[in-house]
């Protein structure tokens, strides 16, 4: 309903600098009632910074924020909440040991006389909110028992319990399955119908087309464009974001297939049963599965981070179970899908994070040669265009996508035979994605074997020479070659069983 009404939220000329970085250089953004307005841009473009300013976590250096036409100043998250703004961060901030209901009404519990909590009201009101979001679940269940998607809905319920009129989501779908994404979209549409304004940040452009009315593009802290999604071509979005055309997202060129490098035989453990695969030199092999299919556990099992049965050999040598150290020594690397919990050393520098695995290579009798280490780090930063004011910057201050690139870089410095990537491009922008796929292609041409574990179908189809599907911990069907692969069949093969179960 386009009207003469004042926008719900109007940001004008917002600027924010950190030591060594101008994150935002005077940007505008507006959100109307009942619209979904997407914000996209390269890694480090300033999207999350803008969100944190709206949330009251950071204060802008310049510029104004208006809510329903009135100028406001947010000094803390409480100020922002007061104006009925709710941010759903990617790292959800729920209390895992409390129940759903307690989390939804945290700081806002319904009370009876003598300030006692009115449990009955608490549970019934939570149930109502949850049902409204299509979540039929006992409100007394603790948060720790929920999936990420369910937790996200709890966050939204929390927003609704406070009658939020502005809901902001920062990369909400990166850990959700396709069906979960669709139900999230259904919820967003319902909120939209009630006049809630939704600001939506994502690197997945197809989602923008599925859910957003308008889209704004930032590049390097500057506002590049704001357009109606219906009038905007995919190609234009990419060009606005990256500043150039990305011609070849998947630059895979056939390489010479050499000897077998990685042999995984009847692997079992976790929810994985009897899984076998092999990777040859010069190959990019992908395992595709839905969230929860075991595709991520497979990496941990092969790498020896989980107890396992079955055998894993690299160039014919058995890799010890439960010893990532042995795996690396024999030439196997593993990029995990969980960058915060399993990858990043948040208090350490970008340099220390990048050289974590390879630091022994720059050391003599344990003494690190600082010059060599710095040179190696600088090379990686250039190669992956990691945006940082310097190699000594603490990695916690990098944007999400740049943190991810640093973790990719960590494995490029070690001399490996096979590199396993679990969700290699999670949170990474289109331009950098192409860059990482090109690196994979290079590595294959140099005689390495690449194993990609992914829930992203386009990625799998674009980059892999052969694909196998994992479904409920077992391999579903035969190997599919790059030529045979088609989206419909792969999706069906990965899904069909699941639906029967549900």
């Amino acid at each position, binding site marked *: 309903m386009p009207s003469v009404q004042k926008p719900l939220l109007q940001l004008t000329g917002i600027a924010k600098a950190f030591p060594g970085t101008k994150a935002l250089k005077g940007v505008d953004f507006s959100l109307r009632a009942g619209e979904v307005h997407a914000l996209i841009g390269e890694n480090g473009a300033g999207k999350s910074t803008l969100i944190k300013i709206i949330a009251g976590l950071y204060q802008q250096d310049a510029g104004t924020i208006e809510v329903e036409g009135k100028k406001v100043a947010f000094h803390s998250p409480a100020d922002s909440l007061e104006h009925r703004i709710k941010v759903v961060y990617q790292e959800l901030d729920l209390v895992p040991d409390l129940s759903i209901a307690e989390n939804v009404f945290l700081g806002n519990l319904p009370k009876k006389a003598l300030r006692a909590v009115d449990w009955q009201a608490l549970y019934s009101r939570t149930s109502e909110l949850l049902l409204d979001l299509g979540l039929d679940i006992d409100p007394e269940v603790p948060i720790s028992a929920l999936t990420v998607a369910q937790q996200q809905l709890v966050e939204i319920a929390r927003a609704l319990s406070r009658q939020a009129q502005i809901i902001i989501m920062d990369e909400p779908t990166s850990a959700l399955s396709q069906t979960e994404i669709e139900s999230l979209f259904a919820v967003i549409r319902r909120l939209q119908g009630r006049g809630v304004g939704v600001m939506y940040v994502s690197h997945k452009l197809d989602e923008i087309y599925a859910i957003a009315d308008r889209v704004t593009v930032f590049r390097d802290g500057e506002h590049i464009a704001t357009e109606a999604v219906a009038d905007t071509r995919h190609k234009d979005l990419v060009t606005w974001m990256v500043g150039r055309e990305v011609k070849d997202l998947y630059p895979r060129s056939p390489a010479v297939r050499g000897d077998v490098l990685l042999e995984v035989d009847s692997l079992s453990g976790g929810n994985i049963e009897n899984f076998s695969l092999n990777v040859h030199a010069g190959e990019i092999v992908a395992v595709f599965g839905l969230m929860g299919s075991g595709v991520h556990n497979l990496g941990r099992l092969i790498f020896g981070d989980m107890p396992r049965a079955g055998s894993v050999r690299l160039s014919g040598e058995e890799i010890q179970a439960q010893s990532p150290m042995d795996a690396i020594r024999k030439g196997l690397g593993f990029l995990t899908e969980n960058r915060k919990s399993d990858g990043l*050393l948040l*208090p*350490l520098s970008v340099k220390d994070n990048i050289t974590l695995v390879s630091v022994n290579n720059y050391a003599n009798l344990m003494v690190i040669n600082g010059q060599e280490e710095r040179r190696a780090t600088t090379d990686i930063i250039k190669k992956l265009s990691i945006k940082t004011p310097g190699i000594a910057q603490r990695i916690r201050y990098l944007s999400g996508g740049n943190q991810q690139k640093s973790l990719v870089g960590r494995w490029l410095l070690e001399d490996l035979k096979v590199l396993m990537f679990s969700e290699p491009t999670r949170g990474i922008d289109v331009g950098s994605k192409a860059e990482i796929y090109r690196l994979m292609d290079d590595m294959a041409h140099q005689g390495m074997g690449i194993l990609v574990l992914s829930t992203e179908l386009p990625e799998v189809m674009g980059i892999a020479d052969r694909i196998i599907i994992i479904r409920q911990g077992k391999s579903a069907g035969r190997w599919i070659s790059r030529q045979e692969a088609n989206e419909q069949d792969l999706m069906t093969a990965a899904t069909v069983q699941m639906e029967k179960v549900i």
Partner: protein
Amino acid sequence: MLDSSADTSGTGIGKFLTRAAHWLLHTQEGVLFFIVAAIWVFLTIQSPVFFTGRNIGVLLSQVSMTAITAVGMTILLISGEIDASVGSMQAFVGVVVMSVLNSTSNLALGIVVGLAIGVAVGLINSLISLRLGINSLIATLAMLSIVRGAAFGFTEASIQNTHKIPTFTEIGNGFFLGVPWPIIFFFAVFLIFYFVLSRTTFGRFVHAVGANPEAATLAGIPVRLVKMAGFVLTSVLAAFSAIILLSRLNSGQNGIGAGFELEAIGAVLLGGTSLSGGEGSMVGTFLAVLLLGTLKNGIVLLDINSSWQVAVTGLIIIIAVLLDARRRRRLGQD
């Protein structure tokens, strides 16, 4: 993408001054340096005795035991663990070493036995914390009592020096080129482990296992081994402190060292090492120990009731925790 603000090695004097100012005002080391310098200036004005070679020698010798233990504790805290048992070690190592010296008159043997106790207790601490999975604060608090019990079990009274080995007395009271031996030990230990922590792969791994043990494991780092090394190192350095203390006191006392663990841990925290692991500063620890010694020395020089010396530790811990909270607030949500 790499631009030049955080760590270029430009040589302009202006740049140097900016960086020095940043260090002074914005880092915990800088703030500590500032405080220590201010108190030194104050004491120099207040007391003609303060800034004399003799008094500075006394000041540094007095804190050398705490300092040596704190060096190990810094590494242990960065690795995400802690050792509260170092206080009782002062007593237990003291009584055992003195009785070994008395019965064998062999200085080398006495020292080896003392350090071996350090290794053993460090291994037990790491075993309880890492194998049995008991939080290291709880585990080593238990060890604090157990080791104290061992000291009391070993002897009911203090053990006097009956061996009269002259070199033994030198350890805590002698001079080398005019500098007291304890200060030389203190500076040597500090320099060695400053280097180990900042320039070696072991130092890097210590930071990594403290920052994120799961990520460290997946990077092929032997997490338990690194932490175990931290426990043993701390305990051995505590034993070394105990030997110096023993020489200074010239008798093994089973009740000595009460509160010593608080002093060492407090200094490490005040130096800017985080209780949550992964970050810390050896220079900070050095400055914090210096502050501790300066306050104690000042209390004596200004003729304040010397019972307050004990309270200084408490003060240090409160300042440490306040500074830590301030730093965390500044880091904010990421």
